[in-house]
């Protein structure tokens, strides 16, 4: 295509603007990661470091010396892994029958699900339900109230609907049961949908903060995000135990500790994202097509 002067200016402008926005999104992370690995003296002297000269792992050594953070990290990893599997299993088990046109009562069921998207009982009734089920201070309180995300369910149902009917029929003729069809035919074809919703659920569990504050009084059970708030926003010092180090170890300044906590509470979830990115564009696209 031949481009005019105004067309070039237009191109230049959009490239510059989107690039600038990309930098604004990215540089804060780069700074936090870089600063967390910088020796305290260098960070104090320069203030802003993107490529540190002197490396130091003091922030991380300090954090991992504390049983608190280590334990909450284990809790969060387990929650994200086990919770996500449970979420996916239950979402699939409900989405598949809803995708079948021969299901009795499909319309009222769908209406019942859609209604929960626009009206809810609110925080206090939810809290009272969790409380009356004796789930307070139990990890189940972080999994069960969000077991099935209604939006994910609807999108997954639409995804199942557009799989060809012939596959199911032939499997059924070969003597497959409903569960057989789902687990042996449908799910193996649903890789990208499962990856997308798996990622969404996993991110939700990894980042869970408010439910933990609401339902867990026992600080020993807190996931990482709650500790992150204590350390960064409430500036709660003294999480660590420097006595376990040799005498030469000086407790690093709070800024370094804060940066290091941000990194360990962010990086694991960001590491799985690039592997799944190509799938979720497709997954979200499905959601935009109404069915």
């Amino acid at each position: 295509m031949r481009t005019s002067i105004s067309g070039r200016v237009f191109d230049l402008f959009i490239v510059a603007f989107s690039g600038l926005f990309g930098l604004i999104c990215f540089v804060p992370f780069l700074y936090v990661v870089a600063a967390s690995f910088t020796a305290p003296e260098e960070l104090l002297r320069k203030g802003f470091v993107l490529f540190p000269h002197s490396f130091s792992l003091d922030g991380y050594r300090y954090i991992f010396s504390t049983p608190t953070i280590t334990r909450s990290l284990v809790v969060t990893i387990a929650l994200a892994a086990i919770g996500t599997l449970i979420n996916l299993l239950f979402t699939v088990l409900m989405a598949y029958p809803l995708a079948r046109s021969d299901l009795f009562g499909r319309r009222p069921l769908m209406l019942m699900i859609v209604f929960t998207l626009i009206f809810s009982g609110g925080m206090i009734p939810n809290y009272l339900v969790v409380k009356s089920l004796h789930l307070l201070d139990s990890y189940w309180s972080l999994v069960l109230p969000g077991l099935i995300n209604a939006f994910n369910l609807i999108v997954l149902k639409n995804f199942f609907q557009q799989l060809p009917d012939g596959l199911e029929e032939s499997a059924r003729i070969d003597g497959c049961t409903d569960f057989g069809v789902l687990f042996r035919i449908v799910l193996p074809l649903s890789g990208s949908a499962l990856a997308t919703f798996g990622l969404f659920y996993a991110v939700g569990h990894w980042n869970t903060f408010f439910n933990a504050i609401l339902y867990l009084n026992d600080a020993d059970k807190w996931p990482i995000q709650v500790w992150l708030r204590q350390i960064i926003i409430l500036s709660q010092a003294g999480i660590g135990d420097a006595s376990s180090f040799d005498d030469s170890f000086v407790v690093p300044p709070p800024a370094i500790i804060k940066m290091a906590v941000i990194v360990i509470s962010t990086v694991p979830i960001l590491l799985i994202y690039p592997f799944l990115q190509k799938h979720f564009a497709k997954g979200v696209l499905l959601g935009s097509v109404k069915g």
Partner: protein
Amino acid sequence: MLLPGVAFFIVFKYVPMWGVLISFQNYQPFLGFGGSDWVGLKHFDRFFSEPAFWTLFRNTFLLAVYNLIFFFPLPIVLALMLNEIRLQAYKRVIQTIIYIPHFVSWVVVVGIAYLFFTTEGGLVNEWLASVGLEKISFLLSADWFRTFITGQVIWKDTGWGTIIFLAALAGVDPQLYEAAKMDGANRLRQLWHITLPAVRSTIVILLILRLGHFLDTGFEQIFLNMNAMNREVAEVFDTYVYSVGIQSGQFSYSTAVGLFKSVVGLVLVVAANRLAKRFGEEGVY
């Protein structure tokens, strides 16, 4: 196969909806739902006559309006720009980067904002000081609160918001552009006559959904940014429900506040959907 899912929706979605009835009771935890007295609209009367009501209403409303004016159009603009970028590799890199902030928690977003904006060694204030300006107490100031909140939302979710528009744009038939070019349309004309109509229904649907959640100001974000110095402008319906309900145990009163919010949301969705249909769009349902 359906049973576990249906049980979930009943126990965790519909039982709480029924539970809002405690806002017409003096709910006592040890008496339970069945044993507590019915008091009619007492809690609603109390709420509407309290000065707190207007403060909450103004704070919630203003944050929602800021969000609608400053945040809502940005993903559309950015998606239109990305769509015009011809260099595919560049476009992909930008896309990958701008989605990232969506995946970090609000605690991290607020935490990073604190590190940058604090008066004690925060980068922005250090810079202000180094060019001879006065430090600004962003975090503890009521004046900056709304700007700060909206800025965080823009940073976290603008990139993510482009996905759905880019998906809609990917579905546009390239022949339309060819035809427009033949007719002598320049790129702005093509944008106006082909690209924008292609995303119009997506914009309408997202606008309806947003109106339905108009009063949901993002509880976690507000909760994390709120402190003693900015409480006057920061307190919104959700944080108020949390503090009078969970922290001071006034279950019935705070449920009434929450119910008021949910009902307003429901009315807004229905109204917006009607409006969309009147303008010839499909609507959400």
